[in-house]
């Protein structure tokens, strides 16, 4: 009842609808640009949210995530280039439909399936998040330390075949988190006499650098993707078609929720899994790959479900399971909001606003998606050379707004170079980001635990929650190691046979 009151206050007493629509619009536009993923679109928005009220900022970021998932399907269907990673599976049948002159129908199915997926994910978010977060009330410093370790163990499944590289990236992230003032003694560390570094390096600068600047550097010199060259209109599915899509959408919802809850899951895995399962359970599996409507519906439902379901571990325990949720965590931290039960108690308006804003954005997606399509098509047709200039200018202008400091621009550009070199050397990003955002929690809770025990490390074994979380982390890393060894052995065997 209390939450309902807050919802009414927000709905009628604040411009939450406006912020939802702006976030959604920005998400669709950013997602429709090939190479600009949902996380980059969100990272570009971060500097603008600094001056906003927390609820408005978080709503805008979450709605951007929702919009980007649909936006990514636009170039996937029209020019065979997914705007976001999670739209890669949509290319298979979406582009085939476009070749058959059914681009509008494919976009309509994508939009409708996105709405279904978002609504289902949102339902899961509302039902599961708060009960889960109450578990965190029993947390002590030892539990928080173990939780940080569990968060870092996400790295194991995000390393694309090299756990060692992922671990190295995470350690570098933890190193960056140690810059600034020591949380216990107040001594300065690695500031090199610079007052700008006393408060540490802001995660937002690192995110913008490694996601956005490095992406622009990677794309430098690449050719344009070619124009769409035709007028396209969204055609929403008929009632009979909606009925036909139900099975594949249901599969997308289930797998999207599962992957959203799983650390390291993410939209692209969910989309491909759903595509495969939808084909397996389809009455017309032979149509898959040849312009199947279900082949568009399943991955689009799944990646939109992930966008909401991935917020469950984030809001309950502060564990980001993907790049996009790591950026959202950055947004929460910027506004001094710590995920967990206290967020539900002390900042209920933010949580209710997030639910409400996401719901508004999900419903508005149909209208905004239809209205924005001509603009997205126009934008995708723009020469890449001009887009690169405009995006870099936006990044540099946006970062300056954070602290009106040119020093911040230097950090973001430096992190852009680090991100570029990491991409080139095959080092994953997320471990670095996780190290930065979880570093403070891991260090301060570890040292507080030892202060309480007088330096006795067995304190970690006396807390059942900590023990459980540490065991879970060990299992997680061990399973990933086994998988990595198995993959390496299979690759070797393949080489021998070749």
């Amino acid at each position, binding site marked *: 009842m209390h939450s309902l009151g807050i919802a009414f206050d927000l709905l009628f007493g604040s411009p939450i609808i406006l912020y939802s629509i702006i976030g959604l619009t920005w998400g669709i536009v950013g997602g429709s640009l090939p190479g600009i993923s949902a996380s980059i679109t969100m990272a570009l928005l971060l500097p*603008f949210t600094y*001056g906003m009220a927390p609820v408005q900022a978080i709503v805008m970021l979450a709605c951007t995530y929702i919009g980007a998932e649909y936006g990514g399907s636009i170039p996937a269907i029209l020019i065979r280039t997914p705007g976001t990673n999670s739209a890669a599976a949509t290319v298979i049948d979406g582009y085939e439909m476009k070749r058959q002159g059914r681009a509008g129908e494919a976009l309509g199915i994508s939009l409708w399936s996105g709405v279904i997926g978002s609504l289902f994910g949102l339902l899961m978010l509302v039902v599961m998040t708060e009960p889960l977060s109450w578990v965190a009330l029993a947390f002590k410093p030892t539990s928080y330390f173990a939780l940080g370790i569990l968060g870092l163990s996400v790295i194991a499944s995000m390393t694309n075949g090299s756990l*060692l*590289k992922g*671990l*190295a990236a995470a*350690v*570098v992230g*933890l*190193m960056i988190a*140690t810059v600034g003032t*020591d949380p*216990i*003694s*107040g*001594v*300065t*560390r*690695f500031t090199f006499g610079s007052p700008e570094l006393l408060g540490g390096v802001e995660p937002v600068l690192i995110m913008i650098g490694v996601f956005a*600047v490095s992406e*622009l*550097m*990677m794309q*430098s*010199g690449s050719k344009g993707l070619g124009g769409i060259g035709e007028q396209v209109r969204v055609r929403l599915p008929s009632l009979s078609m909606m009925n036909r899509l139900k099975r594949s959408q249901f599969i997308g919802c289930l797998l999207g929720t599962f992957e959203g809850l799983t650390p390291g899951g993410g939209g692209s895995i969910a989309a491909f899994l759903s595509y495969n399962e939808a084909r397996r359970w389809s009455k017309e599996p032979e149509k898959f790959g040849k312009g199947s409507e279900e082949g568009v519906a399943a991955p689009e439902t799944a990646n939109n479900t992930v966008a909401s379901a991935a917020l469950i571990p984030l809001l309950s325990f502060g564990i980001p399971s993907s790049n996009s949720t790591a950026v959202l965590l950055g947004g929460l931290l910027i506004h001094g909001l710590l995920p967990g039960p206290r967020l539900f108690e002390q900042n209920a308006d933010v949580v209710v606003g997030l639910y409400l804003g996401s719901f508004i954005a999900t419903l508005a997606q149909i209208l905004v998606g239809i209205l924005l399509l001509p603009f997205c098509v126009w934008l995708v047709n723009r*020469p*890449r*050379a*001009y887009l*690169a*200039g*405009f995006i*870099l*200018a*936006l990044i*540099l*202008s946006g970062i*300056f*707004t954070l602290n*009106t400091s*040119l020093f911040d*621009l*230097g950090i973001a*550009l430096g992190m*852009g*170079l680090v991100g*570029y*070199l990491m991409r*080139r*050397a*095959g*080092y994953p990003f997320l471990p670095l980001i996780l190290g930065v955002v979880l570093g403070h929690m891991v*260090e301060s809770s*570890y*040292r507080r635990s*030892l*202060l309480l025990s007088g*330096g006795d490390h067995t304190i970690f074994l006396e807390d059942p929650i900590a023990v459980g979380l540490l065991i879970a982390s060990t299992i997680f890393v061990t399973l990933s190691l086994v998988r990595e060894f198995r993959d390496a052995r299979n690759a070797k065997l393949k080489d021998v046979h070749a």
Partner: protein
Amino acid sequence: MREQAALKDLAGGVAVLAIAGLYYWATGDIAESTLSDEVGASGLPRILAFALAGLGLILTARAVMAGALSPAHEPAAKSPAPETDDETSTLPRALGFLAFGVAYVCLVSFIGYLPAIALLIGAVALYEGAPRNWKTLVIAAGGALLYWGIFVKILGVHQPSGLFF
């Protein structure tokens, strides 16, 4: 191909070792406080430096075992570079792109936000292959005005001012 990947891994491993070494060296500057706990302000940084050094050693050793230093890759290195996305050709290009950002940071305090952002948009567009004509000039100037309008006029955010603006 495999040797190239191993060489890349070797470079990565050496870079990781270098970061660990530099970071450890910098931990020497951390002062000890009377308020400090048992672990101390430099406790975790030292552990991290050793952990990264260990990972760097393993990564380097793995790259060497994968053939990064074996002479077998030399003939491949002498063969003509493939036309596809080649790292040695894109690294200078990427650094060139980054240089525009650095130049903006250096210039903006002198010439002001509006001209600096126009120069940035125009220069990056030209670098990325936009035609050298009035259209690029107009787009750069228009873009600068658009950003100035959004940031300074609409959002009311202070941007660097220089000698002219």
